[in-house]
């Protein structure tokens, strides 16, 4: 709730700390999804703060095999530096068969991300996953709850979500169910960058312009397009975002194929 005198970023951070701790308090068998993008890195950072420096659960990287070199380097550097227990999640069968975005972007995301996650979840038996999605990224993500149940097939029953009042979340999962927990739902692209600046959180180089283009949203090489921008520092990125009229995920192919692609992907368990 709004409170005068409290810095806005502190307010956002406090809410996220509360959510991360609530998730861990209720589900000890939990993991955090880290894509090395700015949002999940900010979530990882806040989780470190929430647990006084050492995250008490593993972190999953869903590796499609098509990520940028810089992303892998970033993962290796900071997982070591921050003492993070990383689980690499892969759909090896699909990768062995050379599955790629040429098989259709929808099918590719579904096979290499959602299916890979299913395999990992089954192997480790996680009951809850922390994900850094935000409402302002996409209209379908804006319909999410902080604590959102998924059935054994990963289906999201978006037409009948549990009520979520005040700080009372769905803190029990039925058998075969797992919970998607979204502690960054209330952040915006701009507030994330302001937070990264304030906390001096390291970020992947790809976000910064090396001439005339930079990436605003990162993922697989084949499905990310850079945007025209000369912003090569955090300050310049913030300035750019304060005036831009372009949508953040304009460069992300999977959002676009048709109007309801994201809804279809997410109802099947996509992040």
């Amino acid at each position, binding site marked *: *709730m*709004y409170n005068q005198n409290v810095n*806005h970023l502190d307010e956002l951070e406090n809410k996220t700390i509360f959510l991360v*701790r609530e998730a861990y308090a209720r589900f000890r068998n939990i993991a955090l999804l880290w894509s090395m993008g700015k949002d999940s890195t900010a979530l990882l950072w806040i989780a470190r703060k929430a647990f*006084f420096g050492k995250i008490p659960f593993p972190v999953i990287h869903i590796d499609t095999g098509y990520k940028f070199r810089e992303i892998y380097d970033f993962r290796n550097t900071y997982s070591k530096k921050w003492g993070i227990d990383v689980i690499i999640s892969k759909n090896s069968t699909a990768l062995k068969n050379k599955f790629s975005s040429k098989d259709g972007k929808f099918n590719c995301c579904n096979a290499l991300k959602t299916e890979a996650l299913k395999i990992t979840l089954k192997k480790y038996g996680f009951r809850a996953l922390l994900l850094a999605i935000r409402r*302002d990224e996409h209209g*379908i993500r804006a319909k999410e709850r902080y604590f959102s149940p998924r059935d054994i097939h990963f289906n999201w029953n978006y037409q009948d979500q549990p009520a979520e009042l005040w*700080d009372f979340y769905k803190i029990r999962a039925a058998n075969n169910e797992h919970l998607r927990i979204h502690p960054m739902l209330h952040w915006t692209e701009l507030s994330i960058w302001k937070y990264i600046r304030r906390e001096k959180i390291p970020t992947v180089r790809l976000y910064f312009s090396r001439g005339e283009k930079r990436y605003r949203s990162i993922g697989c090489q084949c499905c990310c397009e850079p945007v025209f921008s000369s912003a090569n520092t955090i300050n310049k990125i913030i300035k750019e975002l304060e005036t831009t009229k372009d949508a953040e995920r304009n460069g992300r192919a999977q959002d676009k194929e048709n109007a309801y692609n994201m*809804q279809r992907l997410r109802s099947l368990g996509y992040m």
Partner: protein
Amino acid sequence: MEKKTVHLVMIGHIDHGKSTLIGRLLLNTNSLPDGRLDEIKKISRENNKATELSFLVDQLKEERLQNRTIETTQINFKTERRNYVLIDVPGHAEFIKNMLTGASMADAAVLIIDAHQGIKEQTRRHAYLIKLLGIQKVMVVLNKMDLTHYKKERFETLKAELLEFFKKLGLTFSFIIPVSAKEDQNITCRSKRMRWYKGPAFLQALDRIKTVRETRKKPLRFCIQDVFRVNKENLAMGKVLSGNIRTGQDVTVMPSGKRTRVSFIKVFNRSKKSAQAGENIGIKLHDPSAIARGQIITGANNQLLPVYNFKASVFWICRKTLRLNKPFFLRFAAQEVKCTAERIEKRINSVTLKALKGSTGKLMKNEAAIVVFRTRGPLVIENFSFIEELGRFVIEHKNSLCGVGIVNDPKLKYNTRITKIFRK
């Protein structure tokens, strides 16, 4: 310094124009990304419709096909003065739980009424629920003034009706503004079609709403969310619900009443001298034995008596009926306890606000009542009007949320006073 952010829930009867007003606000404040409007126009055409501004928030395929909001959503916009988070909620009775989900996050509410149709079923229910959730800042918008030819008479008649309705509810509104979201009248600047209206336009009025909470000036209440081991020491992790807490302070752990002292306060990898309402911290107690999730830490001289029964206003949202002496779960902050309803009084219909006759031994979906609960274990609670976070609760059955409640029990005040005298 960041601009202040206000969470605003848009409530009202189905089809009175909530989503359209949101679309209008996003357009007028220049908050839409490039191409977004063209996208909406295209999808509207594909659905054989004129441009549907509501599609900006109604993103689910089912919502667009059925032409109604199903799920709550949030969207940002800003004025010169500050940032807003608009919370859109469904107006349909079927989706009350989604409406409550959205509304519980709001600092203020905008009640939208179709000027042509006037007060309807969900107008009343939403206003009632806003009152129940403790949202005191309310603005009324009379939309679709174009359909009433921008007539002053219609505005005055409705205003009189609303004043009476709000009085009955015990609620007040800060502004009542005639607008047409569709025709863009009285949204950003004063409408030339309604020169008889002397008040501010919608966005001007919005910027004047003040939402300040005085949680810091209240006595200390800290809720233990979890116990976490760091460097072989047990830390109580949790949130300061009200007041502030200091290193070295003498405190009481409730409900046991055990007295101890704060050894230090920890945030990330450093210690802190004090923390205030809203902060999530870790604290080391001098005697950390038997600390657990759900306990409430108070100042040493501000001890409350735990209760085993209390009175509250309850709104019931699930199909399973609340019956006397049948077990349910109560959640208060991080406290969880089994309970039964001992008495159900003043059962009312949440639409007509009229007393329901017949059996008072039960409470059904979409009904409200005053309920006296008896709990199996001790609870540390407050009146909602004093400390919100210990005065609001949910009722669950088999992991699903069945009802929401607000504590309003005169006995609680008395309780605190007795304790103080007793302590002396």
